[in-house]
C-alpha cells in the first residue's frame, strides 16, 4: 500500500504531502521525505564517467528507482523531472506485489496530473498545491493500493537529530531500525 506521496518543488519546498490516513504517526514520514531528497539530488546529478559508474541510460531517466536499500518496513522511490520537481513515493515493504513497472506508471500518472494542474493560471508554480482535482487524484493513488491496513508503529522506530529551528536537509540523519 502506498503510505505516502510527496511532491516537492524545484527548491525542494514541499508542494503536497499526502500520508495514508491509517498511519499513526505521520511526522516520521515528513522526515523520511526530507532525507530522501538528499538521495534524489545525488541521483539526479550527472555523474562524471568513472569505471563502474552507472550507465548513461540510467542517468537519463526521470525515474530514479529505489532510493536507498530498503529497510524491513518501507521502500522509498524517487522521481525527478527536468524542471527539478521531485516526487517521492513510500510504500510498505511487505507489499511484494508492487513491481517496478507499476511504480513507474504511478510516477508517470502523477507527472501528467501535475503538468495538467500547472496549466491553471491561478496557481503560482512553486507554491503549495491547493488544486482540488490534484488532491483528489493523489488521494486516489494512495487508496488504490488495497484496503487500508493499520501500520504498526512499533515495527520501526526512528532516531533523528535535527537543528532546533529548521530541519535542514543536512541537519537530519534518519535511522530506521526494527
Amino acid at each position, binding site marked *: 500500500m502506498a503510505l505516502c506521496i510527496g511532491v516537492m518543488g*524545484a527548491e525542494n519546498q514541499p508542494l503536497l504531502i499526502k500520508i495514508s490516513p491509517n498511519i499513526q504517526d505521520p511526522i516520521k514520514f515528513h522526515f523520511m521525505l526530507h532525507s530522501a531528497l538528499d538521495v534524489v539530488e545525488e541521483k*539526479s546529478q*550527472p555523474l562524471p564517467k568513472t569505471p563502474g559508474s552507472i550507465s548513461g541510460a540510467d*542517468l*537519463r*531517466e*526521470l525515474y530514479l528507482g529505489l532510493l536507498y536499500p530498503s529497510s524491513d518496513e518501507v521502500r522509498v522511490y524517487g522521481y*525527478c*523531472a*527536468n*524542471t*527539478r*520537481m521531485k516526487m517521492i513515493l513510500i510504500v510498505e515493504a511487505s507489499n511484494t506485489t508492487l513491481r517496478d513497472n507499476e511504480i513507474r506508471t504511478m510516477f508517470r500518472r502523477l*507527472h*501528467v496530473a*501535475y*503538468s495538467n494542474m*500547472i*496549466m491553471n*493560471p491561478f496557481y503560482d*508554480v512553486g507554491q503549495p498545491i491547493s488544486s482540488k482535482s490534484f488532491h483528489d487524484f493523489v488521494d486516489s493513488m494512495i487508496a488504490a493500493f488495497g484496503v487500508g491496513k493499520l501500520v504498526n508503529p512499533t515495527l520501526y522506530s526512528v532516531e533523528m537529530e535535527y537543528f532546533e529551528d529548521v530541519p535542514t536537509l543536512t541537519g537530519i540523519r534518519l535511522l530506521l531500525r526494527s
Partner: protein
Amino acid sequence: MADAISGPSYLYNLLANELSVALYGDLDKTSENMGALTMMTIKDRKAAAAAAGPSSSEAPVDTSASARDSDTVFPKLESIGYQVGQRLIERLTKEHARFKDELDRMKFVCTDLWKYLYDKQIDTLRTNNQGTYVFTDNLFRPLAFFSAEGVDQYYPQSGRFIAFPCGIIRGALSALGIRCTVSAKVLSVTCCVFEVVVERT
C-alpha cells in the same frame, strides 16, 4: 507568408499580439491606440484623421506611446511570457530524458520549444561559452505575420512583439533551472535576435 498561417496558429498570433493592446488601461479609445494593430472601423479612421487635422491622412506613429510601452507594458508582456514558458516546459519535457548540461537545455529551447511555438527551429545558436547565448531567428513568425499584412511601416513598434517571446524563453529556462536575462533585437523586418545571459553565481 500569412497564407500559411491559419487555424489555431492564426488565433494564437492574434492573441499574442492583442496582449499588448489588452494591457493598456483604456481599450475604449481605439483611435488613440497603437492603431496598427487594432482593427479600426471606417468611422474611427475618419475621426482620427479629422482630429489630427487635414494635413495628416494616415494613422500617425505614436512615439510617445513607445516610451510608455517600455516602462509599463513590456514588463507585463514579459511576465505573461514567463508564466507561459514555465508551464509549457513541464508539458514538453515530461517524456524527455534528463538534460545533460546547460547547452543541452539551450538546444532544447531552440529546437523543440521553438518548433512548438512557431513551427520552426531557431536558425542559429551561438555562444561565447561563458554564459551568453544568442539565438537568431531569420523568419520570426510574429514579425512575418505583420509584414505580410502590409504594415511594415509600423516596424519601429515591433518591440512589443518580442517582449512576450523574451518572457517565454526566460520562463522556460528558469523552469529548467537556468536563471538568466533575455533581451531581443529586431534586425530587419523579419529577423529577430535573442540574447540570453545566464546568471553566474
